[in-house]
């Protein structure tokens, strides 16, 4: 894990800004070393707010998934529909936490239980127009 000492607040905007830079960041309790992704400002176990940003490797394995035929409006705008389903999943990161993301490189029309446990790596998909354009976290097969 690469250390990052930038003093950005532990907000969604910071997490998003990092993603726009192509970096998947978590937060880490300085005292216990526990890593959180998405980045929590407060450790729920110790209630400490002595956190630091930490860059995550982006490597993980698929823990759960679904093929979505009737998606959210945002995914419909991104071109997905009943004829072009997508895979959404939960990825267990190498550092421990689990995070939700679109999964690329799998055929949503042919779901397979054997996908669970499959190694994945983080990537970022840019969507939206103009000021709304931003990076979305996704994982792809390796």
């Amino acid at each position, binding site marked *: 894990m690469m250390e990052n000492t930038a003093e950005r607040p532990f907000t969604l905007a910071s997490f998003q800004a990092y993603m726009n830079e192509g970096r998947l960041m978590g937060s880490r309790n300085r005292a216990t070393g526990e890593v959180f992704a998405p980045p929590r400002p407060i450790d729920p176990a110790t209630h400490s707010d002595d956190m630091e940003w930490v860059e995550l490797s982006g490597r993980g394995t698929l823990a759960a998934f679904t093929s979505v035929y009737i998606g959210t*409006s945002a995914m419909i705008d991104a071109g997905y529909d009943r004829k072009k389903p997508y895979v959404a999943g939960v990825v267990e990161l190498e550092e421990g936490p689990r995070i939700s993301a679109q999964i690329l490189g799998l055929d949503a029309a042919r779901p397979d239980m054997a996908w*669970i446990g499959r190694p994945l790596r983080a990537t970022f998909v840019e969507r939206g127009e103009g000021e709304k354009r931003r990076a*979305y976290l996704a994982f792809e097969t390796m």
Partner: protein
Amino acid sequence: MRKLNRGVAVVGTGMSQFGSFPEKTTRDLFVEAFQDMRASVDRGLDPNDIEAIYIGNYSSDLFEGQGHTAPIMADWVGLAPRPATRVEDACASGGVALRQGILAVASGLYDVVLVGGIEKMSNLPISGVTDALATAGDVSFEIPAGFTFPGFYAAMATAYMHRYGASADALLRVGIKNHDNGKLNPKAQFQARIADLMAGRIARAQQKGLPVPGWQNGDGLPPRRRGQPAHRLAAAAVRLLARHRRRGGRPAGQRGDRPPLQRRPALRRRHGPGQRHLRPARPAGADRAARRRGAARQAYEMAGVTAADIKIAEVHDCFTIAEIIATEDLGFFAPGTGHEAAEEGLTSRQGPKPVNTSGGLKSKGHPVGASGAAQVVEVWKQMRGAAGERQVDRDVDLALTHNVGGTGQTCVVHVYERR
């Protein structure tokens, strides 16, 4: 374990017809439920005795463009001005509204309160409903991944199946059972057995010369074709039901199943609800079950009972996997064995632990903020022997309701004792 300062009794319950009613608003449906409730009270209810109102409502704001719904409902049934509070905990709104009503009575502030749940979800197109429901997920970290609510629970199903070796047939079993029950519930939205729905689909496929779906008529499960994973078959049935749901509509020739008005014992809620607010959703949450079980454990401790004592339960089967997980979280079956219990029929009306005799959310319908309140109607009827054709064949002196919000961030469990 702390207990309530005094006991709280359910003295009447009622509900509107569940279904899709383009010509009605939540107000109209609430009036139906209110009148049904009034008629259920053994020696009659003077509405003037009602001192406060608690209404579970997830999102009339998004579904109907109407906020501030509690005082509006109270006013429409003639109960203004009284304290009227809307309770929102996603799909657990109704169950948590009950909890707030119980706490208010137990506190001594009120003796009689009205608890309800409302939701009208059929005004919006499917994409609007998908987006409105998605706001009960984490719109910062989960929804951008493309998750929808069916998607969350489908992901839970894959994680559960992978971890415990469950087959999709187990999920299908839950759907078959709940529709068998719902067919006997005149208030249910989908009063049809899955076999009947599939028979219709097969007939249509044959008529059009299309491939016939993999399903056998009757109660039997579809044979698993060589090389075809079971989850495909279940997925076909799920899609079929989704279509049925969109068509919606009120089945013809229904009547209310109002219980007879003779004197019946009141149900006393025993010492209290358990509720926990959990950490943000983990769709792959099979390994987070210990936290989800907290609400059940608290409720059992407050009531001084165990899972084995519970005769029937209405559990939150917003999707079939949710019922399997719920029956484990409630301690009815050991973790990882709920799917076997479902396949063995242990949760059928005739089984040792009947679950969702009303048809559950699956067949009765799931107007999200109303579901937790409607669960109470079923246990009330079953405990009083007034559930008609779907009445279980044993004395129900202890019952339970289990209502989940979101993907498990809220879980509220109530235990009911007949005295």
